[in-house]
């Protein structure tokens, strides 16, 4: 089964692309998304690469598009997203696109500049209009002041007679100069103070607020302004006042003195404002039209430009072979997909109209290929949580298919409540059934993306929680009685008075000997010593499940050893590991089951925990109850065997390897690869070479001696060609690798210690299954006892009213604390159990992920490159 159990078989390929066809071929490969290109120019600066100009042009185009997008968003025009996936346009079309964007950008810039100027004009005119209105009152007041001043006897005597009233008024009016203007409302107090101080109180300020807010042309904000008018005498004050106005950024306007002039000016201003309004409106319309036209295509343009950029980045990674005028690329691709890649290359060559076909060459190499796991929407979540710990080494067993079931199961053992399980399951079901709509909405929130990505995981977690809740017999801390309880109190019930309790004796208070059919008996929920019983049950279940999972992990390592053909590992690691685990904990599991079956309440049952401790200390006090005859001897034997496994794991392999190394490789191939440490090998069989030929271990391709279609050497399919030069023998010559005995020994020692100590500590670590499920059950019970039971015990209508409000509290706490918080906690612990306890038995996780050049991936993540 090749699908998800191991990562796909990968091969390193060389592509020879005609320069004209290169662009189209890369475009086709990007649509296919199955090859990962290697950078053949790693030491070349980004600015010295071949296609840096094209990339610069693409970035310039992107900048223009972003500017357009911002303008479109500012106007609130919806951008059409047809979900189209246009192909990357040919290089010729790129020039057309550039011209279009340039034109659009220029138009928008022009329109914006015009509109800004128009708005500024409009603002000035509006302010002038307000000034003209407000100053009317000021002048009237000022004139009345003049009249009063005139009737002042001190002044009146001098000017009586000759000049008359008008002359007086003119005289008075001439002496008072004024400036009128508009200032921001917030600045008025400071302005007034400054005027008073600077002019020593000899100026007279009047101000009135403009009710309607005005639009600031630069920022587009609405601001409140006030009209002011300052009266002063003399030129010195005038210049001082003007400077102060400048400092406070008040705009001054010429205001005519006589009322008639003012009225004329007002009329003129009104007409000009109307004209401006019309022009402004038309400008906005024009801008809107341009943007609407652009909005139709902008998403498509974005996609096209991103694709072009991606293609040129990829082309930058190729090597240019000037003698043969073609580009050379190296890429990793899955073996099973070579056909599709060939087809894509052919399509690309046809599209570009080139006559020379592109060539795909398979190469052999010692480098480790990337790990590629083909997942669908269901398995991708589980693969992601496995990869989060470490990407699998090439072609080792992938824990993900097993994680699909074991992870939700262990979660459910810790979560075990039917009611909460139903809540979780229905939530996940809604997410799954509404998948397509929810994906189309493209919600950006990180928490949502995480939860939505894990919807299938949550679905399974909920489903298994319902099952384990059924077995634990726990529905929101209440039990179901579906099959009839096994316990029935026989003694005279009237002997127990008041608050007293009676402990039922299993011997005479059961109906018959048959336990509750599926799950824990419902009577335990109501008893005071429930925890004593469930502790024993849950602890032993945790140990059983934990040791089984660890056994499973060790067995998977056997499959790895067999696949990578390391029989030495099977003998020196797998067998002692299994024996050690069995002697210590497999035996314990057998004892657990034996004690459950064999002992009932009439017998004195020995404690398993004390028994296990005594087993390892070889301490058998006289009064010990034995589980079976000959227990002492058998247990001693087991301990001795387990202890013997330790030097077996530690010493055999390093010394055997040293022996092998010393006496050369005269033996068959099967033991040769034992000479490695556990580095993964890529090893594909090439064709047999003559023995004396020197092997070239470098993988870099040499441009000369290209052999094409040497079909007589091959026994495989004709399409794929093996390259002669640059391939290494698949079995390593020992003189290449120096055999370092101390290093091998230390590695082995670390491995042994890790395993042996790990066995004990990991078994204890599995007890968290018990701990979390106890915590969950207790929290649930507390919520019932302290919250939901209170209104139920109140009689009458008041009770039902209270119930309404208390239910609100109970349900929100159930969801927030028990489902979300406990769910996250159990998720984390189940994850840790998988990553550390399960995977440390077989998983190396030293690979790197296959990241194909795929347009879909680039467009989804909107990134560069």
């Amino acid at each position, binding site marked *: *089964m090749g*699908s*998800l159990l191991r990562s796909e078989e990968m091969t390193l390929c060389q592509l020879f692309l005609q320069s004209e066809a290169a662009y189209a071929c890369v475009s086709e490969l990007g649509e296919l998304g199955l090859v990962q290109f290697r950078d053949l120019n790693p030491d070349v600066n980004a600015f010295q690469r071949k296609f840096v100009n094209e990339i610069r042009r693409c970035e310039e185009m992107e900048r223009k598009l972003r500017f357009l997008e911002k303008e479109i968003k500012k106007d609130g025009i919806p951008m059409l997203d047809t979900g189209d996936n246009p192909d990357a346009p040919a290089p010729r079309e790129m020039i057309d696109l550039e011209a279009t964007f340039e034109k659009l950008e220029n138009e928008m810039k022009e329109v914006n500049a015009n509109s800004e100027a128009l708005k500024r004009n409009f603002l000035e005119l509006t302010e002038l209009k307000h000034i003209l209105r407000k100053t009317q009152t000021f002048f009237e007041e000022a004139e009345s002041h003049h009249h009063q001043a005139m009737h002042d006897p001190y002044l009146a005597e001098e000017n009586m007679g000759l000049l008359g009233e008008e002359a007086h008024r003119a005289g008075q009016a001439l002496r008072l100069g004024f400036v009128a203007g508009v200032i921001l409302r917030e600045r008025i107090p400071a302005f007034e103070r400054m005027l008073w101080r600077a002019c020593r109180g000899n100026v007279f300020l009047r101000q009135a607020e403009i009710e309607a807010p005005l639009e600031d042309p630069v920022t587009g904000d609405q601001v409140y302004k006030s009209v002011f008018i300052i009266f002063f005498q003399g030129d010195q004050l005038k210049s001082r006042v003007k400077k102060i106005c400048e400092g406070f950024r008040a705009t001054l306007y010429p205001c005519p003195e006589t009322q008639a002039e003012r009225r004329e000016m007002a009329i003129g201003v009104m007409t000009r404002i109307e004209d401006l309004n019309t022009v402004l409106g038309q400008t906005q319309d024009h801008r809107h039209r341009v943007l609407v036209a652009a909005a139709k295509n902008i998403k498509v343009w974005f996609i096209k430009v991103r694709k072009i950029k991606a293609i040129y980045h990829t082309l930058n990674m190729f090597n240019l072979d000037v003698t043969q005028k073609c580009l050379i690329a190296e890429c990793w691709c899955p073996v099973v997909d070579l056909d599709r890649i060939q087809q894509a290359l052919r399509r690309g060559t046809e599209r570009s109209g080139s006559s020379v076909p592109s060539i795909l060459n398979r190469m052999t190499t010692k480098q480790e290929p990337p790990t590629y796991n083909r997942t669908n929407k269901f398995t991708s979540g589980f693969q992601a949580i496995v990869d989060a710990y470490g990407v699998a080494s090439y072609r080792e067993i992938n824990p993900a*298919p*097993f994680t*699909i*079931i*074991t992870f939700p*199961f262990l979660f459910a*053992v810790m979560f075990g409540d039917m009611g909460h399980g139903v809540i979780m399951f229905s939530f996940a079901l809604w997410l799954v059934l509404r998948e397509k709509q929810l994906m189309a909405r493209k919600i950006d929130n990180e928490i949502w993306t995480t939860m939505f990505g894990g919807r299938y995981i949550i679905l399974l977690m909920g489903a298994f929680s319902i099952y*384990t809740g059924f*077995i634990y017999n726990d529905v929101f801390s209440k039990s179901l009685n579906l*099959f009839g*309880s*096994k*316990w*029935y*109190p026989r003694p005279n*019930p009237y002997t*127990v*008075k*008041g*608050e007293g*309790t*009676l*402990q*039922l*004796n*299993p011997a005479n*208070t059961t*109906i018959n*000997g*048959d*336990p509750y*059919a*599926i*799950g*824990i*008996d419902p*009577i335990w929920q*109501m*008893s*005071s*010593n*429930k925890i*004593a*019983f469930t502790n*024993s*049950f849950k602890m*032993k*279940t945790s140990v059983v*499940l934990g040791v*089984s999972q660890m056994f499973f992990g060790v067995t998977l390592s056997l499959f790895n050893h067999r696949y990578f053909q390391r029989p030495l590992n099977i003998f020196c690691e797998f067998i002692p590991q299994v024996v050690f685990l069995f002697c210590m904990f497999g035996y314990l599991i057998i004892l657990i089951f034996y004690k*459950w*079956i*064999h*002992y*009932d*309440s009439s017998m004195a*049952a020995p404690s398993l925990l004390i028994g296990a401790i005594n087993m390892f200390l070889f301490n058998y006090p006289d009064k010990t109850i034995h589980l079976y005859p000959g227990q002492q001897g058998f247990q001693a034997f087991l301990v001795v065997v387990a202890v013997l496994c330790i030097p077996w794991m530690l010493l055999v392999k390093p010394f055997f390897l040293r022996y092998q190394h010393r006496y050369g490789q005269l033996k068959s191939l099967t033991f040769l690869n034992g000479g490695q440490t556990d580095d993964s090998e890529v090893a594909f069989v090439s064709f047999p070479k003559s023995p004396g030929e020197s092997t070239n271990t470098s993988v870099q391709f040499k441009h000369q001696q290209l052999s094409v279609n040497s079909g007589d050497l091959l026994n495989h399919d004709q399409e794929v060609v093996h390259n002669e030069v640059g391939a290494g023998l698949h079995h390593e010559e020992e003189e290449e690798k120096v055999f370092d005995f101390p290093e091998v020994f230390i590695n082995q020692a670390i491995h042994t210690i890790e395993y042996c100590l790990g066995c004990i500590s990991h078994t204890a670590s599995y007890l968290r299954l018990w701990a979390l499920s106890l915590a969950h059950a207790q929290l649930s019970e507390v919520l019932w006892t302290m919250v939901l039971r209170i209104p139920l015990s109140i009689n009458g209508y008041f009770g039902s009213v209270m119930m309404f409000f208390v239910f609100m509290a109970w349900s929100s706490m159930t969801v927030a604390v028990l489902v979300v918080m406990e769910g996250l906690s159990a998720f984390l612990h189940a994850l840790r159990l998988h990553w550390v306890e399960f995977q440390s038995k077989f998983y190396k996780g030293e690979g790197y992920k296959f990241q194909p050049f795929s347009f879909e991936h680039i467009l989804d993540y909107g990134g560069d490159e």
Partner: protein
Amino acid sequence: MDTPVVVGIVTAVWAFIGIVLPILVQFFMWRSPNKGILQIMLVLSAVCCYVFWLTAYICQLNPLFGPQLKGDLLRVIQQEWKP
């Protein structure tokens, strides 16, 4: 319910899910790419769920002590849960 009956029925159910169904899947779905995953899922869930039920059942076969109940509850149980 009798012990052998219960054990027999539950074992039969999980054996069906864990042994018979994967064999059927092998024959009816043998071209599908998801065949392997489905088989692993069926076998693993059958094994896990069966072991879990088995431990819960066996630990109650011969209980070493009984539940401790209050007097009122005892009387109610005697009334309501008459065998």
